[in-house]
């Protein structure tokens, strides 16, 4: 440490820490509500440690306690370590993922948990910060001004390796999170075309489920043709370009169709189908979505009140304290509570963008954007799935969902950023 603790403390971004604390606190209240049972005693009253350990809310206290220790360590460690050891972290995580793949017992169909005595860890959670550090370090070392296919290939490989290992362990949801890095890369200069194409593919996927393929192609042809004709004075000079755009879009229709029907496994296909028609799988994923919407929808404007929820108390909602914790928020705190949570996430994300932008190093900035993007992806997909706007993907709501791995993972992501930020004034522009 190069400065006094007091000065160091002042240079920490307390706004982010405040938002973090609020979110973890509110998250715990909701975990308590979700795992609270009306016939069990309230709080700690007269229960042994073993009895208490049966409750998620109690274990979450332990997780929060350890997270506090973790965050102190994270900001105390010399910020340069994150830069220096970025690739080491990355290598360790990749190794852990590989090991997990071979030694893990399957839990709920996935081989993604490492068991160390009573503690279960999900290495996939830690792959996020390690990969974020590694790609940031890499980005800082390449010249953005010159396209270099080799650098791009290395970056793509670095980004894809952990999610591929995670997919192999049957945790597709956690793997999809790595898609969030695209937002950070976009900020650092990636062509917007990639985001546009991905967004278009998503739209086409949904349209392909709603409309027969030939109708969809016909509709696209009509729209593109119409656009072409209206702007024919300019466009006629670009007929080959227009035709190739048309060909690409039609190709995407077939590609999406192939992806949906041949690449996706039946249970994954169902998760997308129920978005459009929850009754497609009324007892499976559709059931989860329906129950989740019922829980949130029954909260009304003001909610039923703390511990007054009925839907999230009685196992109607699956995984109610983990992936579906937002149901408890929606049911007990209503629309107002949901909005508070959304505002907190927006505040955190905006603050992260602000913090990232004030970094003098590409490493710090890229890492900041990676953190923001990962938080955003989790938020968008998790909340989206509980309200039927995103497919059911088993990823937690950052800082709210019950679970040590997830809380640690997001704490690490965030506090490495804060550590880097705290030293930004001493950082040299690379």
């Amino acid at each position, binding site marked *: 440490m190069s400065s006094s603790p007091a000065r160091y403390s002042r240079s920490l971004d307390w706004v982010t820490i405040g938002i973090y604390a609020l979110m973890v606190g509110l998250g715990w209240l909701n975990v308590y509500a979700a795992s609270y049972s009306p016939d069990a005693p309230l709080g700690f009253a007269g229960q042994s440690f073993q009895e208490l350990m049966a409750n998620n809310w109690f274990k979450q206290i332990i997780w929060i306690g350890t997270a506090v220790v973790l965050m102190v360590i994270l900001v105390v460690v010399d910020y340069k370590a994150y830069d220096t050891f970025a690739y080491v972290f990355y290598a360790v995580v990749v190794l852990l993922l590989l090991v997990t793949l071979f030694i893990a017992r399957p839990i709920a169909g996935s081989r993604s948990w490492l068991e160390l005595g009573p503690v279960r860890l999900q290495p996939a959670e830690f792959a996020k910060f390690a990969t974020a550090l590694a790609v940031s370090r890499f980005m800082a070392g390449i010249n953005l*001004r010159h396209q270099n296919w080799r650098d791009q290939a290395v970056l793509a490989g670095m980004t894809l390796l952990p999610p591929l290992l995670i997919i192999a362990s049957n945790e597709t949801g956690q793997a999809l999170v790595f898609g969030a890095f695209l937002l950070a890369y976009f900020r650092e200069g990636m062509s917007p075309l990639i985001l546009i194409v991905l967004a278009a593919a998503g739209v086409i996927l949904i349209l392909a489920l709603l409309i027969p393929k030939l109708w969809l192609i016909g509709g696209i042809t009509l729209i593109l043709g119409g656009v072409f004709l209206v702007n024919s004075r300019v466009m006629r000079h670009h007929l080959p370009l227009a035709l190739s755009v048309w060909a690409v879009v039609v190709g995407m229709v077939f590609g999406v169709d192939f992806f949906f029907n041949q690449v996706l496994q039946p249970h994954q296909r169902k998760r997308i189908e129920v978005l459009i028609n929850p009754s497609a799988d009324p*007892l499976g994923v559709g059931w989860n979505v329906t129950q989740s919407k019922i829980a*949130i*929808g029954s909260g009304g404007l003001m909610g039923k009140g703390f511990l007054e929820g009925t839907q999230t108390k*009685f196992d109607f909602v699956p995984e109610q304290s983990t992936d579906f914790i937002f149901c408890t928020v929606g049911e007990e705190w209503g*629309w107002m509570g*949901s909005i508070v949570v959304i505002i907190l996430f927006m505040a955190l994300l905006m603050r992260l963008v602000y913090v990232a932008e004030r970094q003098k190093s590409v490493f710090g900035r890229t890492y900041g954007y990676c953190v923001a993007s990962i938080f955003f992806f989790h938020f968008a997909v998790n909340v989206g799935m509980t309200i039927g706007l995103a497919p059911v993907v088993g990823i937690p709501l950052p800082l709210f969902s019950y679970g040590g791995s997830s809380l640690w993972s997001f704490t690490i992501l965030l506090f490495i950023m804060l550590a880097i930020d705290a030293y930004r004034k001493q950082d040299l522009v690379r």
Partner: protein
Amino acid sequence: MLCTFVDPDTRLGAFYPVSFVQYLEGRKYVVQTIFVVVALLFAARLFYIQVLDGSYKLAADRNSLQRIVQVPYRGLIFDRNGKLIVQNTPVYDLMVVPREIKQLDTVRLCELLQMPVEEFRLALTAAKTYSRVKASPLIQNLSTPELAAIQDNLIDFPGFSIRAHMARSYKTENLAHALGYVGAITPKLLESPKYAKYIAGDNLGITGLESFYEKTLMGRRGVQYRMVNVRGIEKGAFRDGEYDTLSVAGLDLHTSIDSELQQYGEMLMAQKRGSIVALDPKTGEILAFVSAPNFEPARLSGKGMGNRYMDLLNNPERPLFNRPLMATYPPGSVFKLVNELVALQMGVVTPYTSFPCNQRLVKCTHRHEPPTNVGIAIKQSCNPYFYQVMRTAIMRGRSSNPKEDARLGLAEWRRQVMSFGLGQQLGVDLGSERKGSIPSPELYDKMYGRHGWNFRTIYSLSIGQGEIGITGLQMANIMAIIANRGYYYTPHFVRGIGQGGPLPEYRERHYTNIDPQHFDAIIPGMQAVVEGRGGTGNLASLAQFGISVAGKTGTVQNAHGPDHATFAAFAPAEDPQIAIAVFIENAGFGGTSAAPMASLMIEKYLRRKVERTQWETWLEGDASKFIRKR
């Protein structure tokens, strides 16, 4: 290639008048916009499902609160001596929750249940169709050996469980027609508002007393509101049971049936078709209610009930047919008593009126002493005598046109006859009672045209034949009326409901239009039928025990085969305690079969034992033996 970085020299980069780094910094706004758009989208969507769309609230209520109906213990049924005849015993269903089935060893389970694998698969498919997460009965009403076989091995079959509930069981082999049976409510009944309290799978009385007293027997259902999760697992009472109601057990029925008499009657009627109804004239209580052929009440309860019901339904002997209530016959000669009473009440004859046995008017049954008074006429069942009695009663000379006179007379006659409870439902506490028929002038107008008929057309009514139909119950009730000298209580089975008495309508006397003294005029004749020398009902005599029986034989002409035999009586004549009517189809002369059968019933009821066992032997076998002996 996944990533393509924009070259600063491309048009896009050069488009901005700022440096590349500044251009890229502008992308933070794109990123922030994406964040905000998603947040706004979520806020709008949440506003829709939480505030605008009320359907989720409704769904939530349905989800978490379950109304659990507690089916109370069904009331018991006792006979008049306090003997339990219908009770409840637990029966066991094999339940299945398809979702919880794990590694099912179908072959072994089927072996335990002694059930074909195919049948098991069908039942399981049906259960899955009903619900994958809710329990539904796979096999209902397991037998005791089946239960024993499966119970100990249930642990090996996750997803399967045993559910106990109450079903009817019987401590009698008799009275099936009166008791009726209990079965699952049909979808059709469920739709009716009368059965709004019932849910699918509930049991209720389908016929007989079980049906008539359904509300009483059923008791009051309790309703408990429970917090449950989607899998139906209870999570405690809703608001500490504030809205719960306790179930109240059904009330017991104390019937007036004399089990021993009932059993005896069914024994006597074995292999025959017909009915016996015995009443206590002083109260209208039904002592015995025999419908032959019969069946054991237990056949319509428990496992395989549906199949057995279909067997009974398709049986050509029609054992399900409730003859005492639903079979209407012309009453035959017994009806002469009613006609005589009506004529006496009209004042057109006296007990001492003499009519010749004029065979030209109507054939008489046999040669006999001259009917110089009503007593002899009844004893000999003289057809011409009662022809003339009825003609006197009908043809009153109130119109110069004899055809109009017959119309007026018949209308008056009908009014009097109906006061005996004939041509209408008596109101017994069983459903599906037939009215019978007492012909009106309008009926004959319809058949022959107005003024197209005269007394000669309808004379057969005078001897209880023709367009007249009464039930066995009504016949017994006529005897009760005569025994009471002019009134009756509506016949009923239930003399006590719970700790109380019978229904109020059964405590009410119904008077006929006939004055009591007219009954005194015919009863000696009825005694003479049984005890007088050459009386048609001599085989019913209980004189050896000092019991005087007053009765009347009947032989009912039947277009479809041999005559039906009937005998109606009450005893003891001076203090009647039992009124009885016996109908035996195709058994010929009433005095030969119906009269001894009635007397055995009376002997059994009044003396509690039967000494005249020779008549039991006499009555054994089917009705055809009496035709040969005639």
